[in-house]
């Protein structure tokens, strides 16, 4: 049973690795790489998590699962606020996001904080994709350590 702290250390190292490249085009790809990794982890994690769950009633039920069960497993707490416009846009608010709590909470590192949100965005996108929902997930930080994830469902 791997310890919680280990995941945080590993995530920090992955962010550092992806951003350590001096080549310009590699720099732009860093966030994409992180998001891709998160996507794959999210897909696999949700498979393990929902092994014994019954089918979700609707999209909102799926989102509630992400906010409660998935968030608890990954970040040991639930999402603090879920809002939706009932037309495919969901905003998840976490007032104390676990991967940001170790960073200083002034204004100084707001830009760097986005580097730490790429993997979680991918995680959500991957989880949703394996539950049958295609989406685009973005994140924003206004005050550390709170952050908002915006999920836009792509209806084909």
């Amino acid at each position: 049973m791997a310890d919680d702290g280990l995941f945080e250390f590993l995530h920090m190292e992955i962010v550092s690795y992806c951003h350590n490249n001096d080549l310009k085009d590699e720099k732009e790809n860093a966030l994409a790489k992180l998001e891709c990794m998160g996507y794959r982890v999210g897909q696999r994690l949700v498979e393990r998590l929902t092994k014994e769950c019954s089918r979700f009633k609707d999209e909102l039920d799926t989102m509630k699962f992400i906010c409660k069960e998935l968030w608890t497993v990954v970040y040991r707490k639930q999402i603090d606020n879920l809002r939706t416009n009932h037309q495919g846009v969901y905003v998840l608010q976490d007032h104390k996001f676990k991967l940001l709590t170790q960073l200083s909470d002034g204004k100084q590192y707001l830009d760097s904080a986005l580097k730490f949100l790429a993997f979680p965005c991918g995680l959500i996108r991957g989880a949703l994709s394996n539950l049958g929902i295609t989406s685009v997930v973005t994140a924003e930080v206004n005050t550390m350590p709170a952050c908002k994830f915006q999920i836009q469902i792509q209806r084909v």
Partner: protein
Amino acid sequence: MSRQTARPTDSRKVSAELFTLTYGALVSQLLKDYENDDDVNKQLEKIGYNIGIRAIEDFLARSNVTRCNDFRETADVISKIAFKMFLGISPAVTNWSPAGDEFSLLIENNPLTDFVELPEGHNKLNYSCVLCGALKGALEMVQLEVDVKIVQDQLKGDNVTELRVKFIKRLEDAIPAGED
């Protein structure tokens, strides 16, 4: 009407798998970025080193161990307390060298390699070498310079994963020039 939720034991196991899955995604990415396995191994060791230098602080804060008197005690602490705390396993400490400066850690259920198979053409990849880097980094922070190598690997067909730890020297804090 309510959906059947996952049982608590399941979700604890799954959060352990989070680390395994993330590590697997990292190794896959490294294999794409680097062409040869030796470079991947070096990166994994470097990443392990960086994790180790931080994890040791976490370990010392949470475990209340006192200073070890000799290398044998160090080996026991690593196996029974550190590995247990971070990975939930207790590798066996064996194969002591006659001089008492080398030992092996035998890991039977490596949590890093759950669900993992080595792909074709990557026989030189040491999947678990992040553990080598982590041990090296952690021990360096407590003034011990060691060399850690993987000598047996379950992913390559061996029965156990064996890490060989060799003591090199004790590190003394260097006194800044001009002070006595």
